[in-house]
């Protein structure tokens, strides 16, 4: 019997503690959008309904366990079946459910209305990074995790933003309705930022919709939530929400950069420039599979000392631009621009003692792409 008592106290404590713990920031974030706040309220409402039902049911249960112990001489009654009670405990829960379903339906209807968006962003999942394209602005970039492997392996102290930091965050204006169009180039991913209450699968062959109107400037972090292969844990989402002015400034800078890069396609690039840019691209896009030192792993071939690749530049260019069909090696011609492609190929041909001395010019690649 002591055990039952211990149990009652234990469970009671758990129930009392649970909300206290909730209050300490272990709960679902309230978030920074109207929808995220609605969802939070729904979540708390259903939570408290469950707590109340739980308290009532467990109170009756533990009272019975305590009161009707045979060791205390309890004699068993023989009653069973009682239509009134049975009708009551079917209909009351039904009414509670209807009470829950109404606000849930209303919120869902709001979530499903992406009309009147001020800005459209195409989000593409790729093993294992996100590609963002501002549809009306002609800007696109990839966003991959910037936490170094040394932190993951514990060779260096872990930063506060461990696993939740990227090289290029998605930048969005506050107080604007932003519509996301989500798809994937390979397997299913899922784009999630808890503070924005946006979670939507990115599925190859489909374009899904979701939207957000952020109310406060800030940096909001999330992760891919659909198992997408080995680096599923290393595919963070970072959204940087800015005031309209700052956003426009950022936009202008980005455009200028893009334009400068586009204009530079035709000029002759130096080896050093290409190597520098190539290392960046390689680290952000290729290293998840081929490793930082080009040594590969498992099904991902080593590029350092890869004879087939080093013997034949055209083959190398073809592999990167058009991909290797039927393998995880994607066609990067659609994602990276001529400068990025030329520089990453040049980098691969000269890094890690590959030292071929080959220089692939952006103009060559541009011709291929056209």
């Amino acid at each position, binding site marked *: 019997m002591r055990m039952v008592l211990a149990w009652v106290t234990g469970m009671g404590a758990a129930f009392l503690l649970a909300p206290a713990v909730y209050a300490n920031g272990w709960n679902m974030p309230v978030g920074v959008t109207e929808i995220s706040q609605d969802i939070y309220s729904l979540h708390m409402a259903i939570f408290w309904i469950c707590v109340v039902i739980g308290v009532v049911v467990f109170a009756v249960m533990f009272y019975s366990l305590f009161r*009707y112990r045979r060791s205390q001489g309890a004699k068993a009654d023989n009653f069973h*079946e009682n239509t009134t009670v049975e009708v009551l405990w079917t209909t009351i829960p039904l009414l509670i459910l209807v009470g829950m379903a109404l606000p849930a339906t209303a919120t869902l209807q709001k979530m499903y209305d992406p009309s009147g968006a001020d800005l459209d962003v195409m989000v593409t999942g790729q093993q294992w990074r996100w590609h963002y394209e501002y549809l009306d602005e002609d800007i696109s970039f990839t966003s991959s995790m910037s936490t170094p492997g040394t932190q993951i392996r514990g060779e260096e102290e872990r930063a506060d933003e461990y696993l939740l930091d990227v090289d290029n965050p998605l930048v969005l204006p506050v107080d604007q309705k932003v519509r996301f169009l989500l798809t994937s180039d390979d397997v*299913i991913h899922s784009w999630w930022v808890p503070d924005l209450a946006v979670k939507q699968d990115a599925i190859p062959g489909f374009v899904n919709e979701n939207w957000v109107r952020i109310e406060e400037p800030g940096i909001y972090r*999330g992760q891919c939530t659909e198992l997408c292969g080995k680096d599923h844990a290393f595919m963070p989402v970072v959204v940087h929400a800015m005031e309209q002015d700052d956003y426009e400034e950022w936009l202008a800078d980005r455009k200028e950069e893009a334009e400068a890069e586009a204009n530079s396609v035709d000029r002759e690039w130096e080896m050093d420039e290409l190597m520098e840019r190539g290392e960046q691209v390689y680290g952000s896009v290729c290293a998840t599979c081929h490793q930082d030192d080009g040594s590969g792993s498992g099904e991902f071939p080593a590029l350092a000392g890869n004879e087939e690749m080093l013997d034949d530049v055209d083959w190398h260019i073809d592999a990167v631009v058009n991909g290797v069909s039927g393998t995880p090696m994607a066609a990067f011609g659609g994602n990276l621009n001529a400068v990025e492609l030329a520089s990453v190929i040049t980098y691969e041909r000269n890094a890690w003692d590959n030292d071929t001395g080959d220089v692939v010019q952006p103009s060559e690649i541009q011709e291929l792409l056209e």
Partner: protein
Amino acid sequence: MAPKLPPQHTLEQSSATTTAGQAQEHDHHHGGPTGIKRWLLTTNHKEIGTLYLLFSLSMFFIGGIFALVVRAELFQPGLQLVEPEFFNQMTTMHGLIMVFGAVMPAFVGLANWMIPLQVGAPDMALPRLNNFSFWLLPVAFGLLLSTLFMPGGAPNFGWTFYAPLSTDYGPPSTTFFIFSLHIAGISSILGAINIIATILNMRAPGMRMMDMPLFVWTWLITAFLLIAVMPVLAGVITMMLMDINFGTSFFDAGGGGDPVLFQHLFWFFGHPEVYIMILPAFGIVSAIVPAFARKPLFGYASMVYATASIAILSFLVWVHHMFVVGLPLAAELFFMYTTMLIAVPTGVKVFNWVTTLFRGSITFETPMLFALAFIVMFTIGGFSGLMLAIVPADFQYHDTYFVVAHFHYVLVPGAVFAIIAGAYYWLPKWTGHYPDERLGRWHFWLSVIGVNLTFFPMHFSGLAGMPRRIPDYALQFADFNMVSSIGGFIFGVSQLLFIAVLIKCVRGGEKAPAKAWDGAEDLEWTVPSPAPLHTFETPPDLTSQAPQRH
């Protein structure tokens, strides 16, 4: 409910078979197969039941070791013990082994042992098929486990094996995985057919459907679910097989296929599968609670109807696993409402158990402890299930540790505790000895502590934003994960006590009479303990008895 007698000729037939069987059995004891052959060739429902239970137990430990690898890696942030590729193999194999290798076969084992005893039948209706169904399992799971040693490793795409991760991007061993799942599926279907045939045809004279113990009822309904959905699973894995090996593109968007179709098919199987793993548990708890409260189950008929309602609803809720896939509003609403509706019959069950306790005369032997813990923790799992049904909130919960917490609450202190409760309850019948009460209590309390330490913090890590199926996590999840890992090891290690209890109980212990628990009323308690190899060769005649349950 009109009295419905089982057709008389069936009974004569079955008793004729047993007389013949008995003659054979006589040989069997002396000149017949012995040693390994006895187990390979047995057609006796008790021996096959034992085989199923031992198989399930070994899978429970293998699947448990995989879970502990996962928990060990997650003990701290960073990658310490395993690489992400292997981590994914461990989560996948843990899920597959526990669902298909541990929980399902455990229930089939209990069905084999207990259904003939509870309906007064001499054996299962199709004893040779029964042998075949069992021996398919070691083949299936031997094959599945062998993939760990294949180039490219074992399946690594989660137990839900979503395409195209499992098709275009899966390891070469995926084809073996498909084959092993096919074999396990055939085993399940054959087992289900056998159970249905036994229940419908072999009840003792005078036992009407509405006189059957609830374990029999829940298994009857479960068996129909199995027959309905295992072919869907077989279909979907065959489509995968074709995509991988024969150039089709059912699920490959590049070839005009549809990855979302995969999920619809998978969950059309997968949701009823969830109830396949819980309905028989309801049956076990509905036997144990009245036995130790010494009071009839409060609402027998409403329990039967609630079980049937849950089974029917289980075909109408599969999309609640896919709320963020991008389905139309109307679909989301429909499946939210149907999912919420399931809370009603489930609530009826819990209310019935609690009311059964009210004004009883209660004792707390180990089976009762596990059954009571089942009621409490299954209800907690039910609550989080209700929360997950609220679609807008599910946009936040989906694919996080909140979901992991939810389904482990219904499966571990739910299904697994019910199986353990059933084992403690029926061990006196199986072995003739009571299980050691002191060890049993230790096993119980350590399990309860371990389970809650493991899975309760997962609610928090999930709400705080931790996705499931990741080998490494952000720093704010570190404390929750450390507690979960400690709990996981406590739970895992304390299951060794269960082995100790089992061995001790087989070897000796306090002798149990035919009716081992004074409040237990079903037919199995009328045969001696341990139950002899052959029971009810002459069916018990219940026609003269007052109806048992109304």
